[in-house]
């Protein structure tokens, strides 16, 4: 378990550096790290990654908020949909088979990667 905690800290550090450098969320690194390196299921990786995103995005939001770079009315409208979507999505992830969830994740990750290359 100690090894798992060390691996988790290393994974978090890498995800943080990448997020700070490129402005992408840490999830694109944390989820594959949890699955491929710490042997979690795709569902456990989703849940655990989401918990870390609360902390990392809150810290980044403070910086953007202080700089005045937040359109709050737009955020409120997106939020009205996204909190409902988040509940549905998390519940759905638990019911769908792991293989399908993993394949959708791989597709989204590939698109995110290609967007950065092109």
């Amino acid at each position, binding site marked *: 378990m100690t090894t798992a905690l060390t691996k988790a800290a290393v994974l978090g550090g890498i995800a943080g550096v990448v997020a700070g450098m490129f402005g992408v969320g840490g999830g694109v690194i944390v989820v*594959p790290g949890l699955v491929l390196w710490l042997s979690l299921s795709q569902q*456990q990786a989703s849940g*655990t990654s989401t918990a870390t995103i609360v902390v990392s995005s809150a810290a980044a939001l403070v910086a953007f908020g202080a700089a005045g770079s937040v359109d709050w009315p737009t955020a409120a409208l997106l939020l009205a949909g996204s909190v409902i979507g988040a509940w549905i999505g998390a519940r759905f992830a638990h019911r769908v088979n792991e293989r399908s969830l993993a394949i959708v994740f791989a597709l989204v990750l590939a698109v995110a990667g290609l967007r950065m290359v092109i």
Partner: protein
Amino acid sequence: MLEAFALIIVGLLTGALAAALGLGGGVIFVPALVVLFSFDQHLAQGTSLAVIVPTAVVATIAHARTGNVQWRLATPIAAAGLVGAVLGAQVALRLDADVLRRAFGVFLVILAVRMAWRAWRLNGRPAQEADPS
């Protein structure tokens, strides 16, 4: 009115996908705000973050109810992540970010292939243990 409706729908779909996959949702929110609503990159990122924080809270609660949050691992990841993010921002200010960005994109595609390869070998293993709630 139509714009407000469109924003709620974008939020709903992105929130669902992000929560299911363990992502924040910025991958979709930022390009959507830039392309569909003509936001500049910085304002899009800040607005996206303001949506992601409460959305991730809701997603985490929903995942935790089905036993899919490993708090023991989430804690060191989040703590080390904060330190890493500060270092990463410093590095970005000093280096040619464009070349690194492309290299990172290639790395993400390789990760995607590895994730797909693993998924392929799962042979449709059913979902985890029964829902405790």
